[in-house]
């Protein structure tokens, strides 16, 4: 159709489960094969999964792309890392190899990387299940020859996600747990705070995903050290395509006041400074 804007590639496909693996109690990694979605995907983007063919649950569930599966350097599929929190995610965890799911994606605007200059240090900060989209981001940054500093936080060692994957990519994440069972006891933003304090004047950009209080803290740290931050937000969704206007969050306008922006379209990644908490 020769219409550039409309050529955004979004696929609606029935995909069969390649693998479903429990990585911690209540946490799973699901592998789906799809050369199309994985080739079109960028870090921070997500998919919508229609988990059950019937009307319960009715709406599809949003899941970030956790990593890209490759074979001979071709992108052939992707994984999602998720936590069981309700009916939809419980049913998802019961899917086994060969069962199929309707998948819509890739969706949303992910992390902006094009403006990152050499000499800039990308800082990745993940808390809890918020770690999910950050492995793909780390992979992509590495391919672009950047070496991000990685901070991971969780309630406990048991719930600390994807540490092995980051390590096998060659990273040595700085780790905190709230109960002190692994790494430094406390919040991941405390770790981030002392790192920024120790490396004053650092040219860096923060990329974070996690619970809202953690993101708010990350945004305020970024502000006090005059750094840019890109934060991945969540909101309940219906269409995932920008049509229903159901998934909005409050964002500062350029001049004054606020507007509502769609997590599925303008987001899920927003500039930390623009978010009204």
């Amino acid at each position, binding site marked *: 159709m020769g219409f550039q804007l409309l050529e955004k590639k979004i696929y609606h496909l029935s995909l069969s489960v390649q693998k479903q693996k429990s990585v911690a109690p209540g946490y799973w990694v699901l592998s789906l094969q799809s050369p199309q979605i994985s080739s079109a995907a960028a870090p921070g983007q997500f998919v919508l999964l229609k988990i059950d063919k019937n009307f319960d649950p009715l709406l599809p569930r949003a899941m970030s792309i956790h990593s890209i599966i490759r074979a001979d350097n071709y992108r052939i599929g992707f994984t999602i890392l998720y936590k069981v929190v309700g009916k939809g995610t419980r049913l998802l965890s019961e899917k086994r190899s060969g069962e199929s799911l*309707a998948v819509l994606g890739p969706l949303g605007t992910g992390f902006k990387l094009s403006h990152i200059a050499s000499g800039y240090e990308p800082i990745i900060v993940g808390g809890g299940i918020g770690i999910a989209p950050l492995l793909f981001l780390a992979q992509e940054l590495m391919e672009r020859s950047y070496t991000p500093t990685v901070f991971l936080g969780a309630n406990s060692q048991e719930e600390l996600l994807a540490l092995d994957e980051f390590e096998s990519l060659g990273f040595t994440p700085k780790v905190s747990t709230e109960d002190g069972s692994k790494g430094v006891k406390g919040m991941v933003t405390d770790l981030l705070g002392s790192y920024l304090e120790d490396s004053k004047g650092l040219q860096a950009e923060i990329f974070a995903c996690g619970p809202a209080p953690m993101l708010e803290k990350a945004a305020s740290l970024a502000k006090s050290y005059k750094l840019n931050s890109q934060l991945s937000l969540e*909101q*309940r*969704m219906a269409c995932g395509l920008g049509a*229903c206007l*159901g998934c*909005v969050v*409050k964002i500062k306008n350029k001049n004054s006041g606020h507007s*509502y922006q769609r997590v599925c379209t303008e987001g899920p990644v927003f500039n930390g400074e623009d978010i009204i908490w």
Partner: protein
Amino acid sequence: MVASSSPSLSVELNGLKLKNPIIAASGTFGYGLEYAPLGDLGKLGGIVTKGLSMWEEKGNPPPRICETPAGMLNSIGLDNIGIENFITEKLPQLIRYDTAFIVNIWGRETDDYIKAAERLDEAKGIAALEVNISCPNIKKGGITFGTDPSVTFKLVQAVRKRTALPLLVKLTPNVTDIILIARSAEDAGANALSLINTLLGMEIDVSTRRPSLANITGGLSGPAIRPVALQMVYQTAKKVNIPLVGVGGISSVADVIKFMLAGASAVQIGTANFFDPTICWRLVDELEEYLRNDNISDVNQLVGAMREE
């Protein structure tokens, strides 16, 4: 006899011609372009835009949606880009597609609807207007336009005078007797009626003891409301002489056929777009297949054809 030739899918809604009876419902298909990556919009019978007003509307604070058994609640609050922006930014991109673009309009007082109709009447590429009368009338103490027969009559008549475009009037189910409202809209000059809009509802999160929507109440849609919508279409079809467009919970070709049998000449697909984003395209194919398998040469033969003995 006609089995081998393609059945005819086109319908005519009293001045509005559609290539097939499958229309995307207001508020569930954006301005159309949002779904363009998934299929050729030109294959659909029509697309109704998000409800537009003469001004840009921010809408309600989040959370705006919440899932309910076989349905969902929304309190979007008529968030929209405004008619002027629609005309300059969206319409030029839409006219590339050979489908009927129906602009849904709303306002807070009669004058808002009048201005909207006048402005859209000048624009090129619009097939019809759909008047959403499920909005509170600020001049009448916030009472919904579409719950009062005489208010409905005056509003539709005022809009009718300002535009030559075919007018669909979108009825609210939150009334005692939908036939009274339907007749008022017909008498005032509506070409066709769309029914139904969402049913009022609410949900509470017991763990937080807070309402699930920031706005507390919202509109219920999805498969849960389908029998209510079907009944209203059936009942109304017997009492008015203009075509009806059935809306409410449609999520399969069987549902499309049900609404047509009950008296609808066309249907709109709403919430189903969210959980089955390519459904509108598939329904066009499946409806054609149904007609062919049943040896029905023209889709209009289904309209009102429910057997009642």
